[in-house]
């Protein structure tokens, strides 16, 4: 198969996918799923209801009683959270931190994962296992050595510590072990024939990577983007440590976490804050959902 044919094969696959839509399950499948959905939704619904009640009401009666009169819903938690000084700036900061950190991890991990999956070199398995093993390093133990590194490492007089650059780089480092692991596994399961015939047709590894491996791994890339985005978006520790005490640089997670420390028992604001900060990751999840399609690799073997 040549590179020019690859998109055609994928296009043709869409047709078979539509035809081979899995048969719908019976009552048992539906029941099991609905029970699981209810179990998973109950705590989330409890949180949602609590976010629309006063602290006194939540402390006095269960969230389920809110559905019977007297209805005592209030939007004051949301008003308080959204009325915080600098919340709009924090929203922007979260995007500024999260998007580059996600792009960096996905691309750098994809290069490494491709080398691990489809290139021969001595010590490959050992090196790979060390990379994955780094998942176990607790973030807390890296903070002080990395802070020292940022302090001493000032190429061309650029100060890294306390800047967004520091956070982008740190999140990239921390996110790589899982990203490499996930992508190497997916790349490794792609059909060998595709890469062999590409090599026979004279395609360079670079071409095989960009035109074959990446397009065939869209579901894995989509799930990696979802989680890297989510982790960076919700991260508190890395942002706090590497950005330092500069309020105008703080992302949403830091500003929202401060709701309790500055207010003692302000936990009811946390419930509203949870939904405010959840909106963006959920949008990312829903919009990447459509890349979870069946049969992207299926037809390629025939090529």
């Amino acid at each position, binding site marked *: 198969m040549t590179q020019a044919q690859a998109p055609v094969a994928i296009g043709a696959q869409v047709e078979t996918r539509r035809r081979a839509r899995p048969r*719908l399950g019976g009552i048992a*499948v539906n029941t099991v*799923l609905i029970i*699981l959905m209810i179990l*998973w*939704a109950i705590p989330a619904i409890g*949180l949602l209801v*609590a976010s629309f009640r006063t602290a006194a009401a939540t402390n006095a*009666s*269960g969230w*389920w009683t809110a559905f019977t009169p007297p209805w005592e819903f209030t939007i004051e938690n949301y008003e308080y959270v959204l009325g915080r000084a600098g919340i709009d700036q924090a929203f*922007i900061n979260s*995007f*500024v931190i999260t998007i*580059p950190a996600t*792009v*960096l991890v996905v691309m*750098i991990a994809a*290069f*490494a994962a491709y*080398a691990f999956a489809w*290139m021969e*070199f001595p010590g490959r*398995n050992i090196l790979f296992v060390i*990379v*994955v093993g*780094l*998942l*176990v390093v*607790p973030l*807390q*133990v*890296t903070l002080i*050595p*990395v802070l020292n590194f940022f302090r001493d490492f000032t190429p061309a007089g650029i*100060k890294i510590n306390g*800047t*967004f650059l520091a956070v982008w780089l740190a999140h990239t*480092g*921390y996110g790589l*072990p*899982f990203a490499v*692991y996930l992508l190497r*596994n997916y790349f490794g*399961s792609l059909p060998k024939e595709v890469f062999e015939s590409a090599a026979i047709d004279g395609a360079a*590894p*670079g071409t095989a990577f960009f035109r074959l491996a990446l397009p065939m791994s869209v579901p*894995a890339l989509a799930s990696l983007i979802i*989680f890297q985005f989510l982790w960076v978006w919700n991260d*508190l520790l890395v942002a706090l440590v590497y950005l330092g005490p500069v309020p105008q640089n703080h992302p949403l997670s830091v500003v929202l976490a401060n709701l*309790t420390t500055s207010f003692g028992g302000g*936990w009811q604001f946390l*419930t509203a804050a*949870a939904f405010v*900060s959840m909106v963006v990751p959920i949008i990312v*999840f*829903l919009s990447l959902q459509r890349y*979870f399609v069946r*049969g992207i690799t*299926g037809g390629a073997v025939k090529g």
Partner: protein
Amino acid sequence: MFDAILENRLLAAILVVIAVPIVLVGYIYLVEFVVGLFRRTTAGRIRPWLWLAPALVFLGVFLVYPTIATVIRSFQNRRGDQFVGLENYQWFFTQNDTLIALRNNVIWVIFLPLLVVGIGLLVAVLVDRVRFEGAAKTVIFLPMAISFVAAGVIWRFMYELDPKIGTLNATLNAVGAEPRAWLVEQPQNNFFLIIVGVWLLTGFAMVILSAGLKGISTELLEAARVDGANEVQVFRRIVLPLLMPTIAVIATTIIIYALKTFDVVYTMTNGNFNTDVIANTMYQMLFNNGQPGRSAAIAVILFVAIVPVMIVNIRRFQEQEAVR
């Protein structure tokens, strides 16, 4: 100049989002160009290292270098000016509290992966067959997007003793049973904390497993069905073996998560009622007790604990390569 650009953060972010992919893609094309100047065998030898280089630099600075520093620190005393041999390790293995934390981690490592992978797989396989796939996945994924602190708030109300407020005890009350002190009763309070972890992480397993599932060729499944295989056979003979590598990735990730588990325990009980875990002990030693040496020793024990998991992974990759 660079500082000025960083000041204007939106511009900087847009610049980074456009420039980073260009630079990285350019890097690969540059590598391929340079490698192309060499003979075939030489090219094959240097190419992998150039593809790996960006990742290795990042991992070296942010994870390997701190790890080496931690290992050295674990053999030093409290102030870090004297080597004390295995004293910090000896401390860990002779304290009642740390041994209970170790026991609790064993419970976490066994049950968290089992439940998360099991339920995640069940959902990933079943949602393929219903009309409300998107809705079901969103509901299971939702907890992933909730911050740990907020999850802590709601689960404290789930487990609250007072049946007027606590969801679970209200349910028990409704069926005429006595309310329970979920987070105090030992040792089952560990399981109730694990349930919070399962609620949070199943969405993660489900999304990755679902992505793996979508990679399985439809023709293969249809062919098996045409040949008369029922759905259970299709799952056991085709789907499960093909999904095994993805299951192993999730299981490994969740085992490591269980070893490092911290947030749930920290926000729910802070280790009280014999629910402590070693990552929480490590955190307390580092930030509250001023014992960085002991804290480092705990981190090293974590590294050692995953060695068996990694050996299983090596074997699996060797098998994968042998068959392809």
